[in-house]
C-alpha cells in the first residue's frame, strides 16, 4: 500500500502528512487527538541523514508535545550500504534514533510501529522493533535478507534453505512468521483506523515479544532461556 493511501485510510483526506524525499513526517489528528507520524517510503535505505531526520522529530515531539503518541510508518530496504555512512558512524546514528524512541516511550509517549510495505534488518531494529509494539499490514514483507543472498553468505544450499523456510518460521521472510515469533504483535487487516485505535489502547509497555513467540509457537526458546538465566543458581 502506498503511504498516501494508508494515511487517508487512517487519518482521512486532510491528513497533513508530508513527504520530503523518502522521509515522511507530520502531526496528524487521529479521532480528534494529535499524533506524531514519522516514516519512510520508497523502500528507503536508512543512512545517517535519514536516521537523524527521524530522531529530530522524536526529540521535537518530546520537547513540544509531551506524551503525544508516535506512529512509525515503516518501508525500508534496510540500512544504507555505503562506505561513507559507515565512516560517519551509521551504527551510532541508528542507535541514536533507537534511543530517542526508547526515551520517548519511557517518558510516556505511546510509540507504535506499522510495517506498511517492507522492513529489513538494520532499518527495522531502530524503528518498529524498538517501539512499544510493532504491527504490519498483511501484504507487507519483513526479512533479514533474501534467501539467495542468505545462501551465498552462509554457504548453505539454496534448495535446503527454501525447504527449511517452509517448515520453520526462523528462516523465511514474511509477516506471518514475524507474528508467530512475536516480533510483530498483530496484523492490521480491513479497518485500519479501528486497529490503530485498539493498538493505542492496549499495546504493552514491557517487552513481551519472547513470551508472545512462545505462546504462538514460532519462537519456543527465547523466553524460556532468558527465564533460566534469571533462575540459575
Amino acid at each position, binding site marked *: 500500500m502506498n503511504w498516501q493511501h494508508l494515511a487517508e485510510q487512517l487519518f482521512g483526506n486532510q491528513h497533513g502528512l508530508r513527504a520530503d524525499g523518502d522521509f515522511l513526517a507530520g502531526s496528524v489528528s487521529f479521532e480528534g487527538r494529535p499524533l506524531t507520524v514519522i516514516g519512510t517510503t520508497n523502500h528507503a535505505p536508512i543512512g*545517517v541523514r535519514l536516521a*537523524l531526520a527521524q*530522531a529530530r522529530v522524536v*526529540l521535537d515531539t*518530546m*520537547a513540544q508535545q509531551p506524551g503525544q503518541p508516535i506512529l512509525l510508518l515503516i518501508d525500508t530496504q534496510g540500512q544504507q*550500504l*555505503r*562506505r*561513507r555512512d*559507515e*565512516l*560517519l*558512524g*551509521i*551504527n*551510532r*546514528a*541508528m*542507535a*541514536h534514533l*533507537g*534511543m530517542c524512541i*526508547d*526515551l520517548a516511550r*519511557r517518558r510516556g509517549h505511546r510509540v507504535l510501529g506499522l510495517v506498511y510495505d517492507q522492513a529489513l*534488518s*538494520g532499518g*527495522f*531494529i*531502530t524503528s518498529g*522493533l*524498538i517501539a512499544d509494539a510493532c504491527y504490519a499490514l498483511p501484504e507487507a514483507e*519483513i*526479512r*533479514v535478507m533474501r534467501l539467495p543472498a*542468505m545462501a551465498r553468505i*552462509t554457504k*548453505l544450499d539454496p534448495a*535446503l*534453505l527454501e525447504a*527449511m523456510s517452509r517448515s*520453520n518460521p*526462523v*528462516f*523465511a521472510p514474511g509477516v506471518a512468521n514475524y507474528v508467530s*515469533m512475536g*516480533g510483530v504483535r498483530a496484523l492490521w487487516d480491513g479497518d485500519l483506523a479501528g486497529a490503530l485505535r485498539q493498538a493505542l489502547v492496549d499495546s504493552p509497555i514491557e*517487552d513481551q*515479544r*519472547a513470551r508472545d513467540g512462545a505462546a504462538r509457537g514460532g*519462537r519456543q526458546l*527465547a*523466553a524460556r*532461556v*532468558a527465564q*533460566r*538465566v*534469571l533462575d*540459575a543458581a
Partner: protein
Amino acid sequence: MISYAECSARERIAQLLDAGSFHEWLPPAERVTSPHLAQLGVPSAFDDGVAIGRARLDGRTVFVAAQEGAFMGGGVGEVHGAKLVGLLRRALLDPHGERPDAVLLLADSGGVRLHEANAGLIAVSEVMRAVLDARAAGIPVLFLIGSANGCFGGMGIVARCADHVVMSDVGRLAMSGPEVIEASHGVEEFDARDRALVWRTTGGKHRWLSGDCDTLVEDDVQAFRDAAIAALGDTRPVTVQALEHEHRLLAARLQLLPEALDGDIEAVTLWRGLGVADAARVSSLDVDAVRALRPA
C-alpha cells in the same frame, strides 16, 4: 602482553576478570544450544557461542557476557540472544540480591546469525531494549570491542546504546561488513580486501578520533581490564539533554564530509574536519600517539 584479539571468549573472561571469580550461568554442560543449526548441517556449540555469568572485577561484582567469534562469526541467534537478554534482566530485576556494579559485554559478533535470521533479528532488538532498561535503572553497560570479528550489524547498534565503549585499534565497530557493501555496490565503493581502508573506516583509531568509542587501548587483555575498571563508575543517564547533545554532534559531523570522496582521502578528510592534528599520519601512529590526537 596477551593479545585480546587472539583470545577465545572464555580466555577473555579468564584473563580480564579477577582470577577464578567467574561463575557461569547455563554453562556448556547444560547444553542450552540452538535448535536450528543441526538441520542445516551446522554443528551447535554447547554454549551457543556466548558465555554469561557473574564475576568480580577489581573486587566489585559485575555481570559479564563474552561472545565467541569463531562460532558462527559470533552471530546472535535465538538462544544466544536470550542468554544476553536474561543476563541484562537479571541485573535489572536482581532476583538473587546480587545487583552488579556493571554489565560487561565482550562483543565479538557479525550481528544477526543468518542461520536463524528472523529469530536473530528479533533477539538483537530484545538485547537492545534490555540494555536500555538496564541503563534506565542506573546499571552501567560497558562494551569491550577488540576481537577479530569486531562488532557489526545489530550488535554495532547495541554497542552505541551502552554507557561506555572500550576499543582496541584492531577492534572494529560498524554496521554493515565491508564484504556486504562490496557485494552490493561494487569494489569501487568499498574494497573489502583493502584492510587498511577497512580499518580506517571502521577500526578503533577512527572510532576514537570521531568519539564513537570512549576509551582506546592497545590489543592487550590487561589494557582492556584497566579500561573496564576505570569505566565501572561511568554511568550516563539517557536524558533529553544528552540526546539533544548527541544529535547536534552527529548533525554537525554529517556536514564535515563532502559526498563521494575517494577511499584514500575520505577518513583523513573527516579527521581533519573534526580538528585532528596530523590526520594524514594517523594510520602509522601507535595507540598512545593517536589517543593524544582526539580534540577535546
